């Protein structure tokens, strides 16, 4: 019965219109309706997004739930939406995280709550649009537009240094997108269309491909973020309010990774092949170097931010080992599939785990108003239930089997072994480093007895309330579910990934 509905449009416009509605509620004096309305919109959006899963046909690589309408005829651009096995789970994740973010800000945000909730709802619509857009112009507009709510969220509800962080975030990402725009315009010139799928069919020479790849690289690497353009992330996270950090880590970072899959790999397969070694090196630096940097952090949010960068290193590693395996064996290779599917699983799983960890920091920050590790110690004494969740998420962050954090890393390590022993070796160091920074933080924050000078803060903490318990248990269930049975997630992406690898493979073959 829902097959006839323009589901993707609904997922974009419902939260945006809903956001405007919430803004209107803010005009009321008592603002009593703001939060329920926001939650209502978020939940409906999430429930609608589930129909993407139930109605999805996992046997085809073609775009599904397609909508195509004229937009600007003169430019040959369309309002063109559709999802495949890569973007569909990301849209559900976005809608899901949005519900939790609305709940997490429930009584915590007292300053302009209507604007806060509206910003998140609108951002959700825009982000869903980014994942669903099949027209490059539409993609670009949404990609840029989504920065605005985030800029406002950091700049208005952020911490003391929020202006520096917001501007750094904005300029960093804007710099990347400008180059992407040039690349898109070049390809429009070549193909006469803004259709992303048309771009996939473009036959371009090596030079053009390399330049386009590099232009995309700047845009996407900043978003992921990859070393060395990652330094905006820790600052943005530290200053952002909890909800902002959650969306940033859980969804926005995935935009960059998604960009590689939707643009770089299929449009510039030859350049991707040529520069794969560089991408692998950068990814491994992210895993190892950033892991060590995370170890030395004293601020919990910074630590998790760096941990995010290291985990995203697995995503880019998983994408690009395919080319090294191809060089070695002359075939697509099983490891390429493992690597790429592992990387996509890692994207989803990292959304749950990093989101959960930022929410946990938020829980502490709301009570003690500090993010510094040394302000805590012995929290498990006064917040045993909370401690249980933190240990679970920290374990998931260090890739414990049985949690979703294991699945992606495991597959990428298995795949990269085919690309070379030492690549797998360096990637697998995350087993040690990841556990070290995650559990060392757990030790310093949760364990130990409460020091005398912290009796007034840590000693008086109240354990998480029903709302917080609900949020964290929802995430815990997801983390455990996909750890124990990831097949439902993998199942929808097989054909899409195989098709993508095949496309890339044929392009390289025919260039020979």
């Amino acid at each position, binding site marked *: 019965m829902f097959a006839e509905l323009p589901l993707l449009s609904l997922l974009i416009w419902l939260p945006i219109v809903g956001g405007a509605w919430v803004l209107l509620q803010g005009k009321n004096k008592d603002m009593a309706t703001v939060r329920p309305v926001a939650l209502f919109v978020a939940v409906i959006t999430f429930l609608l997004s589930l129909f993407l899963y139930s109605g999805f046909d996992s046997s085809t690589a073609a775009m599904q739930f397609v909508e195509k309408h004229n937009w600007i005829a003169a430019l040959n651009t369309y309002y063109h939406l559709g999802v495949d096995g890569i973007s569909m789970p990301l849209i559900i994740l976005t809608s899901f995280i949005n519900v939790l973010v609305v709940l997490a800000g429930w009584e915590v945000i007292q300053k302009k709550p209507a604007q806060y909730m509206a910003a998140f709802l609108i951002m959700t619509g825009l982000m869903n649009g980014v994942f669903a857009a099949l027209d490059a112009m539409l993609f670009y507009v949404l990609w840029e537009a989504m920065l605005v709510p985030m800029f406002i969220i950091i700049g208005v509800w952020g911490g003391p240094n929020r202006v520096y962080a917001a501007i*750094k975030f904005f300029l*960093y990402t804007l710099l990347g997108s400008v180059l992407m725009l040039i690349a898109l315009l070049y390809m429009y010139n070549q193909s006469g269309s803004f259709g992303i799928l048309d771009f996939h069919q473009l036959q371009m020479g090596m030079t053009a491909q390399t330049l386009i790849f590099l232009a995309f690289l700047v845009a996407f690497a900043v978003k992921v973020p990859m070393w*060395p353009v990652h*330094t*905006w992330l820790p600052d943005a996270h530290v200053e952002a309010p909890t909800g902002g950090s959650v969306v940033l880590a859980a969804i926005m970072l995935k935009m960059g990774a998604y960009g590689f899959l939707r643009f770089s790999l299929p449009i510039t397969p030859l350049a991707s092949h040529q520069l794969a070694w560089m991408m692998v090196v950068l990814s491994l630096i992210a895993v190892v*170097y950033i892991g*060590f*940097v*995370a*170890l*030395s*952090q004293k601020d919990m949010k910074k630590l998790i931010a760096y941990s995010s960068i290291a985990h995203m290193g697995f995503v880019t590693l998983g994408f690009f080992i395919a080319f090294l395996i191809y060089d070695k064996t002359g075939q697509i290779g*099983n490891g390429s*599939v*493992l690597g790429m*599917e*592992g990387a996509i699983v890692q994207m989803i799983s990292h959304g749950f785990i990093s989101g959960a960890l930022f929410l946990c920091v938020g829980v502490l920050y709301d009570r003690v108003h500090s993010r510094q590790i040394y302000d805590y110690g*012995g929290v*498990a*004494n*006064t*917040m*045993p239930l909370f401690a249980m969740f933190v*240990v679970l998420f920290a*374990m998931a962050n260090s890739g*414990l*089997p*049985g949690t979703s954090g*294991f*699945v992606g890393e495991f*597959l990428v*390590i*298995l795949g990269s*072994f085919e690309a070379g*022993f030492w690549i*797998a*070796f360096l990637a*697998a*160091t995350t*087993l*040690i*480093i990841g*556990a*070290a920074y995650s*559990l*060392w933080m757990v*030790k310093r924050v949760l*364990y*130990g*007895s*409460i020091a005398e000078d912290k*009796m007034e803060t840590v*000693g*008086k903490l109240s354990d998480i309330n029903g709302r917080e318990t609900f949020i964290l248990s929802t995430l815990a269930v997801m983390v455990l579910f996909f750890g*124990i*049975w990831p*097949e439902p997630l*993998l*199942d929808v992406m*097989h054909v899409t990934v195989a098709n993508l690898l095949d496309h890339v493979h044929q392009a390289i073959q025919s260039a020979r």
Partner: protein
Amino acid sequence: MESIALIIVLAPLAGAILAGLFSVSRKVAHRITITGVGLSFILSLVVFKQVVLDGLLPFADGTAKEVTLYTWLSSGNSIFEIGFLIDSLTAIMMVTVTFVSWMVHIYTIGYMADDEHNWSGPGGAGKNSYQRFFSYISLFTFSMLMLVMANNFLQLFFGWEAVGLVSYLLIGFWFQRETAVYANLKAFLVNRVGDFGFLLGIAAVLMYFNSLNYADVFANANNLAGISIQVFPGVEWSLMTVICILLFIGAMGKSAQFPLHVWLPDSMEGPTPISALIHAATMVTAGIFMVARMSPLYELSTTALSFVLVIGAITALFMGFLGLVQNDIKRVVAYSTLSQLGYMTVALGASAYNAAIFHLMTHAFFKALLFLGAGSVIIAMHHEQDMRKMGGLKKYLPITYWTALIGSLALIGFPGFSGFFSKDAIIEAVHFAYEADRPGAMFAYYSVVIGVFITALYSFRMFFLTFHGQERMDEHTRSHLHEPPKVVTLPLILLAIPSVLVGVIALQALLYGNFFGDAIYIAKEHQVFTDYHGILGFVLHGLMQPPVYLAAAGVFTAYMLYMKWTDIPARIQHRFSMLHRILMDKYGFDRFNDWFFAGGARQTGNLFSSIGDKTIIDGFFVNGSAHLVNRISGILRQLQTGLLYQYAFAMIIGLLLLLGWFVHF
């Protein structure tokens, strides 16, 4: 029988969830977990009877030894499944694990009865620590069963890490203690170093065998035996050697083999029941079990076997020495465990996988017994663990005394006791390897033989210091000394029985018979135990070998040093103070690791963070380009003076230049 296997695994899990997540009373918590694990034990016996005694295949109506439960994940042409494999090796592990676990569950009722007193401060963390403890040990039982019942490498790794998680939670159970939370972090990270190798080994298996299923891998092992790979460019290594050594690195972490042994002594910070269950009887033997399970692979690489042999021998001998100087009763048992794990590893290296499993089983019973006995002493002594403050406990704790004596005799290999058979088998196997000139076997042989003397010496040092001689405790403690309640002594008695008997019962089947069938594969030229001359023959043969006399000498030396000439130990210590310091320092491993690895990692992190991120990337590039823009715009701003005559002047200059340009061309 699929459902029986499922119940065996899920009953402890259900107990753990109920006791841990639902706020049940203490009584309910221990009742449901004990029922769950008890059910697992009884059903394990049923499985044992069917699979081992009746020789039936457990699954698919008696036609298969393995079953797939569900597909965990599929990707490319790899399918990862969760399933069970039950053969005699699995069955014997299941019975051992569930039995020891059950005993430990019962014992815990007594040991943790007044755990509230171990907690202080706000929050009342001790309020439900009792339930939490039962939940953890049941969860451990579930994880360990998943590990031993796995039919593929993936699930093995699942169980492997899950037992590591529970070990982490239990070592840090008293999380208010700084030493406990230091120890659990250390244990987890050192284990992760092992898992790092293990995971790479699994990746290698998947790449070359294109399956993680044991059956597929073992069936293809021979075909791939000839392959060599280049890990370092230009150096050819046999694939099997690389895989086996990588997997063994995992075993070194879990089974605490040199140099990854450092976490085990510190793990004694956890409550004693888990020291018995996890850090003596079951989890630490997971590595031994794994190598035995992989025997079809290890048999294809003599290099890997020699590596295993040497690592085991180092652990067996040098960790034994450390047991000689410890004063904490639990630490003596801990070093003894390290040394005994070394013996098992040596057996693996000598291709005597069956002897290793035999010793694993006997050790599980008598070491659990010794740990629980030590725990009983600790309860009686009001949580005093220093043997220098004990002595003469025999008359206060008769049951503990006699069971501890049985455990110690089994440990040192007193003829007829279980440890005698399993240890003699190991020495026999190493001797065989030595005669076959396998690399490292000579060193291993002398290590395990000297180790017998050391084992006897430290075991009876502990025994005499604790139960005999002067009563060195204070008056208050002495007046309260009494045997702990029945829930504590009953498991001691129940563990003492197999500690004596299991050797006699299992000897023929495990070593000489066809007990393991195709569960363990030993190449023909590596088989040691071929002609069986009966129990008596084995004992008589043992009595003609040096180990028995070395053990007797060890006991005698301990008697003389700690009962007769009690001033001598101090003089030896003084005379060889250098040696004593090295032993007290545990050969300096902890200091080195703290300095090099822990400190080094922090320093590296600081360096990367302050120089890499802050100075170079942010300082130079990011803020630097911002400053550059700032500076250039500052220069350009000079031109925007706002003075009309300057603009007019500039216009005139410009006009002139333009005119000149036009005129010129």
